């Protein structure tokens, strides 16, 4: 019998797509900001072009959305009514065992772990944790890089420069200098994109090989499992 399993609440789905959109937008604009090779204003004369200005604006807006998505995720991580992600990570010992089992399945294609659980599987959960930790790194280093252009004069909320100042002090204290902060910000972006690629591939792979409608999880919130009797062939 095929059973419907609720996997993601509507807030989680919205945050997921917000995160996905922001990561893509920030990565593309970030590449331009780091090395502005394309999008050149035409002509040599005086112009009102504001290419870098606009690209940075888009970068900042999506970075803010990303930060909001991160903070909502952080809240849901502990306090979600439906499925706090922290439950997929604790107790660490058993969850790590389950994650390793899933990893083994990906490489041997045998012994598929049970997938009827409404919670996210631990391997995915650890992956999401890593991505969100990297988003946090981007948030702090990004604030640090933003600090010099930001002052009391142009901030709407007085606490804002204080936050940026703390972010800068913390990241410079950990990494040594603003140059290294900048490099870490750059490298972490690539790491997030690499992890996102693996994530997208795995969801497609699961949908194709498990035929449980995994892609549907992030659209409708549901997936479909066949309630099977645990028979062990071979």
């Amino acid at each position: 019998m095929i059973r419907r399993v609720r996997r993601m609440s509507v807030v989680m789905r919205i945050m997921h797509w917000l995160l996905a959109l922001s990561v893509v937008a920030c990565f593309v604009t970030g590449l331009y900001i780091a090395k502005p090779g394309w999008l050149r204003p035409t002509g040599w004369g005086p112009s009102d072009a504001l290419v870098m200005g606009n690209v940075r604006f888009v970068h900042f807006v999506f970075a803010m959305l990303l930060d909001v998505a991160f903070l909502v995720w952080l809240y849901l991580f502990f306090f979600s009514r439906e499925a706090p992600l922290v439950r997929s990570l604790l107790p660490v010992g058993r969850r790590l065992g389950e994650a390793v089992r899933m990893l083994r399945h990906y490489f041997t294609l045998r012994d598929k772990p049970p997938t009827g659980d409404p919670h996210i599987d631990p391997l995915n959960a650890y992956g999401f944790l890593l991505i969100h930790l990297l988003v946090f790194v981007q948030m702090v280093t990004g604030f640090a890089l933003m600090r010099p252009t930001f002052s009391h004069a142009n901030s709407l909320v007085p606490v804002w420069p204080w936050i940026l100042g703390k972010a800068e002090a913390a990241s410079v204290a950990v990494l040594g200098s603003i140059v290294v902060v900048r490099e870490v910000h750059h490298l972490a972006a690539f790491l997030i994109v690499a992890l996102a690629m693996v994530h997208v591939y795995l969801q497609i792979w699961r949908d194709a090989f498990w035929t449980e409608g995994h892609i549907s999880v992030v659209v409708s919130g549901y997936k479909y499992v066949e309630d099977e009797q645990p028979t062990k062939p071979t």
Partner: protein
Amino acid sequence: MPKRPPLRAPRSQRTAPPLDRVERRLDRLDRRFGASGLPLDELLARNGVSRREFLKWSSFMTAALCLPPAFERAVARAAALAPRVPVVWLHLQECTGCTESALRSAYPGIAELILEYLSFDYHETIMAPAGHAAEKSLEDTLSKHRGEYLCVMEGSIPTAMDGKYLRLGPAGETGLSLARRVAADAKAVIAIGHCASWGGPQSAAPNPTGARPVHEALGIRTIRIPGCPYNSVSLVGTILNFLLVGDLPALADGRPAWAYAKRIHDTCPRRAHFDAGEFVEQWGDEGAKRGFCLYKMGCKGPYTWNNCNEMGWNEAASFPIRAGHGCIGCSENAFWDQMAPLEKPLADGGVDIPFVRGVEGTVDAVGWALVGGAAAGIAAHAAYSGLVKGTRGSGENREE
């Protein structure tokens, strides 16, 4: 670890010092040092600087030091006193470029003149005595003006092999020992240039001589005036500040905040071209002729705090970015290690991969390798999955 400038100066430093206290202090200094050295009026007249030019300069320095206009007279008085305060200038592990920069300008401004005629009781480059006579004048200053002289240190201090990489004077004293001795009784120690402030190129990896900036080598507090070379306005301003309030100026990252709290990138004359997306693509191209932004030519203005944009060099005639070359970040810690190659943007800069020292790629290359590796892994896994599914038959997954 270096600290960035705070968003605001501490409350105690946010307001100007009381003017009457400053005046009383200057009276006291006048009584103590007024008779020694050359009167500034005479010095300026001899160099063809009119009283009017001097007053204009005083207003400029007052504004630069973030003081209200009422302080102009006090600043002028302090400037007149400046050449009379005893200064001991030590040359350590350095190239003397900072001294040259201050003393050899073709048309010295008032700042340069004040520097030139500072009462250098000991300055190895310009003092007349040599050998034991020079050593004696140093000892005289140390004993006569104990606790009153300013100590300016130019150059880093090699600490490896007990400082034996640097020996100075007829007795062959190590730089480490000399610096320690002079700093002990100084009113304040000013570290001049990148070497004294941050260590300079000689402290770049692998740093065979163990070169350290003054504050690290001696474990003392210094006022850092970094730059390669430093801007003479920054040194004169710091000395004036000392004369006015007798204390350290508000510091940002150990540097006088009035000179180093602004980022080059934010006050850059080419900033509009950065925001427009108009960049110099190669030296001498049309963009270079039109003064476009030098970001893609490796300008490190976005990571550098200094006052080049406002003060300029050579009587405010120009500075590197205005002249057409990007900033190399010479006032920042470890710029030699971290900002190289100096004519390439940081995205093309070398990156040391942690724990794999010596392996070096560009930041971009490492990033794309990560993404490429992920893509290759995905392709391999997809092919493997398809293959296994083909050989085991499509039924297996459903059976599990």
